[in-house]
């Protein structure tokens, strides 16, 4: 029976309409659609989807609850392993994780696990959320640096165990990349992100915004002077990379971080916001990850004509398949096997074009990946007046620089073991600050493991 119905399509905003607004693209399943999609799950005895979920959510179990119409129970199953299901249902790269390993995907389409997770999380939030058990306070204070996915996950687990947790956030709003990085049309702030953060606060976690750990206070201050027994560093990877090609300092060249922070955190797209944003007539976005898609689609919504320039092929695009699909539907142009060599400007120093070279995939390198090599003499120009660089980000060195005895590796990532323990006793780390830029779900998993390790550490001290 299961094979007879195909994957239930999810309702979305019309591409022609959504290209001009910041409303969420995907409407998600309603109850009827969720029940139908859940009925496709084969409830495998050895579920490969669970193995491929970075936090090991009991996927067939929660889907079984959905099948039975017990949505609150389904939310309870997910909550055992993930504290941000409404976020992860929207932003996880399901096609390379749970859905990518679904047995139905071998011959047909995998179960829409992400959409079901999102449905359950949204339903649960609308119906009062999952009740949580919280141990009585043990009087021990733990500091969490950064209110992104890893920090929120770590803080909520520690709070449930009875710790008094304070999160220090450098920006004026909590949420980290969920707030400044991922756009409203993919992850609504008021409807999804803020309730998730409120639920962490409801556990008794304090969130202090506008605190630059490393400047306003140091980790040494927190441990030695402010009475914290342990610190978790989840400061993310926020430092934008540039290419180092001529013309990168011209007016009209921005990092995707700048463009997205102005639009997402500062709400520059909204008339009531005071923050300006630079919108070119023709914009080139360089890169092929989720951040590149987000920047491109934001520029499009602000009225630009947008081209994505990527040096490999469609197959290697690191972005979620759904984002690439949505970007295409909305009218973003893709130029694959193309790499910028220079940004051109006018006599006043404003961008006029992007000089590129065509690439081809060469022999596989040591890692087995075919690396792109330039085709000699194939340079050409794309006329643009804005270039957005979305080439990835690195961890901010501030914390490592200002904390005694905290080891980092050559890319600036904090050195931590599987459980999050760093070279400094009492200091744990996880998420992008350790791995370099990765995904929300991996950061969440790291935050949870570190919470367990902090608990074990404090019990033995």
């Amino acid at each position, binding site marked *: 029976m299961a094979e007879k119905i195909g994957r239930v399509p999810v309702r979305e905003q019309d591409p022609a309409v959504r290209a001009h607004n910041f409303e969420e693209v995907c409407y998600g399943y309603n109850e009827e659609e969720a029940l139908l999609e859940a009925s496709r799950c084969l409830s495998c005895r050895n579920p490969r989807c669970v193995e491929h979920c970075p936090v090991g959510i009991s996927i067939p179990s929660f889907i079984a609850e959905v099948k039975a119409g017990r949505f609150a129970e389904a939310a309870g199953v997910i909550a055992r392993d993930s504290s941000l299901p409404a976020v992860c249902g929207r932003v996880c790269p399901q096609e390379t994780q749970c859905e990518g390993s679904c047995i139905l995907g071998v011959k047909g389409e995998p179960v829409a696990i992400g959409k079901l997770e999102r449905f359950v999380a949204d339903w649960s939030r609308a119906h009062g959320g999952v009740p949580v058990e919280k141990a009585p306070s043990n009087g021990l204070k733990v500091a969490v640096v950064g209110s992104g996915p890893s920090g929120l996950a770590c803080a909520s687990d520690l709070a449930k165990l009875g710790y008094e947790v304070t999160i220090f956030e*450098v920006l004026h709003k909590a949420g980290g990349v969920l707030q400044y990085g991922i756009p409203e049309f993919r992850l609504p702030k008021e409807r999804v992100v803020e309730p998730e953060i409120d639920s962490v606060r409801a556990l008794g976690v304090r969130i202090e915004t506008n605190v630059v750990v490393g400047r306003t206070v140091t980790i040494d201050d927190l441990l030695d002077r402010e009475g914290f027994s342990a610190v978790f560093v989840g400061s993310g990877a926020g430092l934008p990379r*540039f290419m180092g090609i001529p013309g990168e300092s011209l007016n009209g060249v921005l990092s995707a971080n700048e463009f997205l922070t102005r639009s997402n955190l500062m709400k520059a797209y909204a008339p009531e916001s005071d923050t300006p944003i630079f919108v070119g007539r023709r914009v080139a976005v360089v890169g092929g990850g989720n951040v590149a898609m987000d920047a491109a689609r934001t520029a499009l919504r602000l009225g630009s004509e947008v081209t994505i320039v990527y040096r490999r092929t469609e197959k290697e695009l690191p972005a979620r398949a759904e984002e690439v699909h949505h970007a295409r539907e909305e009218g973003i142009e893709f130029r694959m096997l193309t790499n910028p060599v220079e940004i051109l400007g006018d006599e006043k120093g404003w961008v006029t074009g992007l000089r590129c070279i065509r690439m081809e995939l060469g022999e596989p390198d040591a890692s087995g990946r075919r690396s792109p090599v330039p085709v000699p003499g194939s340079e050409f120009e794309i006329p643009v007046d804005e270039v957005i660089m979305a080439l990835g980000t690195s961890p901010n060195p501030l914390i490592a620089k200002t904390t005694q005895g905290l080891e980092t590796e050559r890319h600036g990532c904090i050195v931590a073991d599987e459980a999050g323990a760093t070279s400094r006793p009492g200091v744990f780390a996880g998420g992008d600050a350790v791995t370099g830029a990765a995904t929300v779900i991996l950061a969440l998993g790291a935050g949870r493991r570190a919470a367990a390790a902090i608990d074990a550490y404090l019990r033995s001290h």
Partner: protein
Amino acid sequence: MLTPSICLMDVEAPRLAAAALPGQFLIVRARPEGERIPLTICDYDRAKGTVTIVTQIIGASSRMICALEEGECLTDVVGPLGCPSDFVSEPAEALHGRRFLFVAGGLGTAPVYPQAKYLHERGALVDIVVGAKTADLLILQEEMASVCDHLYVCTDDGSAGHHGLVTEKVKLLLAEGHGYDQAVAIGPMIMMKFVTLTLKETGIPLVVSLNTIMVDGTGMCGCCRITVGGRVRFACVEGPEFNAYEVDFDEALRRQTMYRPQEQEADHKCKIGRG
């Protein structure tokens, strides 16, 4: 208000006041929809837990900050940001007797104050050249006089002190035989450029504090990037102070104009700019 367009306020921010050092800055937002505005730290009182900021009305956001009355709150204050001045890491005895020349232009007077105060307290010899368009725009004159050995005032229209630019006064001082071991210039980018050109020949080390465009101020957005010694640097986390002789001022001046069309239109609410 120090002048009709410049206001001074003490802001309660105990953690910030406890950590602030000369050379650093902070970021404020005046309302929930407000921009993040970087401002220099003019003074800090660790005992009272306050920092002093000076703001000049140049657009919609700075007007909002200056419109706040005593007792009202800024929506957000974050800092200290950036690196402290290099001399902060030197022992007091190394600073004792060292001859400093500060050149302050307009609002740049505010960030010069804590530096001069810090050095003056440690026995350095401090001369300050302050420039403004007219006498009405001179700020913090008594405070400045109290933290230096000599205060020289210049105004563009001659309404106070030397009639002319700060660079002319600096040249005069040098011609009169004043010697300096180190110089610091803080003010409008164009002034810092010309002070740099003026002092280049003398061999006196010169530091400038760059007031670039910023969003987060913590290294995330990269819009503060400038070229120093042929390398791209982020003013917010690697600065704001740099060796003046290595700064590409023409690029820095140009990059300051990136959002100017939107800023000029901010009052009538059309801030989505076109290239």
